[in-house]
């Protein structure tokens, strides 16, 4: 029986400083919300301050690679490694941007007396995602997914009185509950087959004793259900359009970036750690011959992107269109994993940074327009080009970037993804993805046609955009344009972050 020394606890706690910082921020928001009952203006800035401290802790320990609270030799529940830290930076960074979104969003301002809850729940989501990207144990995976989900169910229905908000949260909670229940059943089977819930332990057990068979495949696929739900991959995507359309725009933007990133981090870690046999010098992974992940993921990803892109063509609501486009992007991102190589993972990381900026930027413009016009219908965007030139041009750049055309950052993201595919000699898949991009060009350009070419008879007055909004949009535009031309630092950063603990 091991005795737990104080030193052991201190060593473990030192490694989870970012999570501790988020927890303290959460508690602080609750307390400040209670004390300063009348004035809630400072809450978001306290939250941002807390997240900046969190970011500092992540950057300081960026290249550490070890287990927090190691319970026996090289086994633990929480991993701290560059891969996880990369995603933590992505999540914390996008959280800061989304908090600024919330400050200027009308939907959130309406619930002024519930601002405290809003930010507390967001902190809960961040905590869940942090543990999701760093978990090496099925128990922790389940608990952190639930922590993330429970907070986001409530946030999706934040404006209590709007019909579509309530509907979005109901659909989210039902679909989410089912998918995590199915995952739990898969975990229980996997536990029964291997006798362990630790991914590293399961890997070594499977390598030693060759537990093949239908049950093992089944448990892996059941676990994939909840992860596929989080990243909105094809058979589990049906909640995405409804929830994205119904939820307040800042939360929609947040779900499309942070929660998707956490899901991808978890999927990559689960597939790589549980099923890896060896990594060859070229960075290609050799997985155990249990589940044919390569074929499976290729099928899922082609299904996802085709479905997302073709369904987006018929959409008339901007949020719904962006929801389908985010499904399609999940499909592209899955291709990076299907390559099963370090190069593919680097491509995913690059794509995520780029996707974060361009997607958040697009949602930001949509939100500012919706604040002014009170609509998200694409038909109401007619003639916007002359009424609000800056907003229109910004939206145009974000949409072009989402398509993946040069000289925007979206092109770089797609370029590295396709390079990884070609290097792995998956030309056919690359061609299908390329054709999908062409389809996506149609619906993005359709929005631009409404903005710049269609004229609207009434309501042609110019509307002013506040200085803070212009600065905010410019801040989102800069990386989208700069990374399109000068992308070496981004690529180097991604390549330095692909190291998973142990491999």
């Amino acid at each position, binding site marked *: 029986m091991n005795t737990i020394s104080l030193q052991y606890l201190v060593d473990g706690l030192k490694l989870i400083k970012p999570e501790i910082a988020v927890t303290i921020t959460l508690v602080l928001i609750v307390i400040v919300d209670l004390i300063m009952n009348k004035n809630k203006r400072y809450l978001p800035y306290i939250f941002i301050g807390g997240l900046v401290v969190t970011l500092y802790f992540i950057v300081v320990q960026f290249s550490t690679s070890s287990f927090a609270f190691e319970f026996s030799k090289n086994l633990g529940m929480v991993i701290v490694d560059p891969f996880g830290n990369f995603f933590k930076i992505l999540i914390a960074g996008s959280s800061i941007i989304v908090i600024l979104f919330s400050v200027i969003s009308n939907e959130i301002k309406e619930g002024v007396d519930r601002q405290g809850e809003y930010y507390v729940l967001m902190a809960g989501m961040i905590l869940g995602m942090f543990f999701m990207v760093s978990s090496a144990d099925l*128990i922790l995976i*389940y608990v952190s997914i639930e922590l993330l989900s*429970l907070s986001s169910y409530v946030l999706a229905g934040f404006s209590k009185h709007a019909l579509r908000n*309530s509907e979005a949260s109901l659909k989210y909670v*039902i679909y989410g509950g*089912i998918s995590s*229940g199915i995952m739990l059943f898969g975990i*229980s089977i996997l536990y029964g087959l291997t*006798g362990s*819930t630790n991914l590293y332990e399961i890997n070594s057990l499977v390598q030693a004793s060759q537990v093949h068979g239908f049950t093992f495949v089944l448990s892996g696929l059941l676990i994939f259900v909840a992860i596929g739900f989080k990243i909105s991959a094809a058979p589990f995507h049906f909640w995405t359009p409804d929830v994205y359309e119904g939820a307040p725009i800042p939360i929609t933007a947040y779900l499309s970036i942070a929660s998707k990133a956490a899901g991808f981090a978890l999927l990559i870690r689960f597939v790589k750690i549980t099923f890896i046999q060896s990594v060859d010098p070229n960075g290609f992974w050799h997985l155990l011959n249990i589940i044919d992940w390569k074929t499976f993921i290729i099928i899922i990803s082609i299904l996802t992107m085709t479905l997302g892109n073709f369904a987006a063509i018929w959409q008339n609501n901007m949020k719904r269109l962006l929801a389908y486009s985010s499904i399609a992007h999940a499909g592209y991102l899955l291709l990076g994993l299907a390559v099963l190589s370090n190069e593919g993972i680097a491509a995913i990381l690059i794509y995520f940074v780029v996707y974060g900026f361009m997607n958040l930027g697009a949602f930001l413009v949509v939100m500012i327009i919706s604040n002014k016009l009170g609509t998200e219908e694409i038909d109401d965007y007619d003639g916007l080009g002359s009424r609000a030139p800056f907003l229109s041009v910004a939206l145009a750049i974000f949409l072009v970037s989402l398509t993946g055309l040069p000289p925007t950052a979206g092109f770089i993201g797609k370029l590295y993804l396709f390079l990884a595919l070609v290097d792995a000699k998956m030309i056919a898949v690359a061609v299908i993805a390329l054709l999908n991009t062409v389809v996506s060009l149609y619906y993005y350009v359709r929005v631009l046609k409404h903005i710049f070419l269609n004229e609207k008879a009434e309501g042609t007055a110019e509307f002013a955009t506040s200085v803070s909004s212009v600065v905010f949009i410019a801040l989102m535009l800069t990386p989208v344009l700069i990374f399109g031309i000068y992308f070496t630092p981004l690529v180097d950063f991604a390549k330095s972050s692909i190291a998973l603990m142990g491999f």
Partner: protein
Amino acid sequence: MQVGLNHFLVISTALFSLGIFGIVTRRNAVMVLMGIELILNSANINFIAFARFGNFGLQGQVMALFVIILAAAEAAIALAIVLNIYKTFSTVNVDEIDTLKD
């Protein structure tokens, strides 16, 4: 007759199937939530049975405890959302709540 692992697995699989069946066929949001609870409990039975009969240590039982707690939290949140739905739509029939459509 000795009660063994297989008996537990049969019960848990039956519960899981009943849960899925309930989710698919019921139209009342509360009934759908009950189906989800059945799924969670079927997994719990699996965890406890495997931990008991496989001599795997305490991980399975710890997991079951976590699941019980999270199921309670999820039920609380889901019921609050259903209550909110009832206030805005005056119905809890999931088929009638479809203002968001293609």
